[in-house]
């Protein structure tokens, strides 16, 4: 039988690679929107990683952190959008 925890560790490694690649786009991105998109996918990836950490350390309470983080990323994207359109 394959150990499920091993598979999760592999998945986390892949997500780490994804975050690294997103960082490249974040640094390179010619426009602000590019950077925000890269940041958005970074956030989603880290949401998943937070939830996996919650599972592995068996702490349900970390899920609240994930929910609040998701909420803040949503608000953050809208704030940047408002800023770019000039005017709150």
């Amino acid at each position, binding site marked *: 039988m394959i150990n499920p925890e091993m598979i999760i560790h592999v998945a986390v490694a892949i997500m780490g690679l994804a975050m690294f690649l997103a960082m490249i786009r974040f640094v390179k991105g010619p426009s602000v929107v590019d950077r925000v998109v890269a940041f958005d996918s970074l956030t989603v990836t880290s949401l998943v990683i937070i939830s996996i950490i919650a599972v592995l350390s068996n702490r349900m*309470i970390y899920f*609240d*952190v994930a*929910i*609040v983080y998701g*909420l*803040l990323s949503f*608000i953050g994207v*809208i*704030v940047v959008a*408002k800023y770019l*359109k*000039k*005017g*709150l």
Partner: protein
Amino acid sequence: MLKNILVALVLSVMAYMFYNAYSSYETRTELTGMSHHFASKGAEEVGAANLVTSIIVTYRGFDTLGEVTILFLTASIISFFLKLKSGDKEKIIRRDTSELLVTASQLLIPIIFMFGIYVFMNGHLTPGGGFQGGAIIATGVALMIMANPNISLNHNVIHWVESISGVSFVIIGVLGIFLAGGFLDNRMFSLGEFGDFFSAGAIPIIYSFVGLKVGAELSNILNKYQKSQKEI
């Protein structure tokens, strides 16, 4: 060039300071006297599953009152300075918000408020509590302001919520002197069963007031920002 050198200088000084702080850091292997008392007796004395909450609201309840006051002061100062800047004339192009964002925000805002209320009512069981819940509520207000730029929040409602929750916080603290051991003593109500929703005496009530007060203060700041934008 000079600017770059200055920035590099400041950064290196900061790096040196951080290095010093880091190199002199040792992990504590045992609790100090005070924290030993909190860690061993806290759960049974206060009855809250979250030890941090019990310290913030009961043992150090007076400090929390001070922190909320500091936040109030900050909000007042920010609003004072924002009013001054209304002289600037700068053209702001306003485009109407996307219809989808308006609809989605109408759907999301009640749920965000619900989550904020959940966070500060469960402060004695889960991480979070008054300050965090208040911040979540303020996030909801921020979404509301951004989705409808023409909205004007009722100034009086925010002030009433803030004042009433602040006064209630103090009143519960004073009640603690008469009904239990001292100021902000949570044992005026029964401690209940450990880990239950209704446990830890007055902590959920105190934390709800803290949450409402923090939420109202932060909303006040956001509201002032929006007002100052409009005047331009």
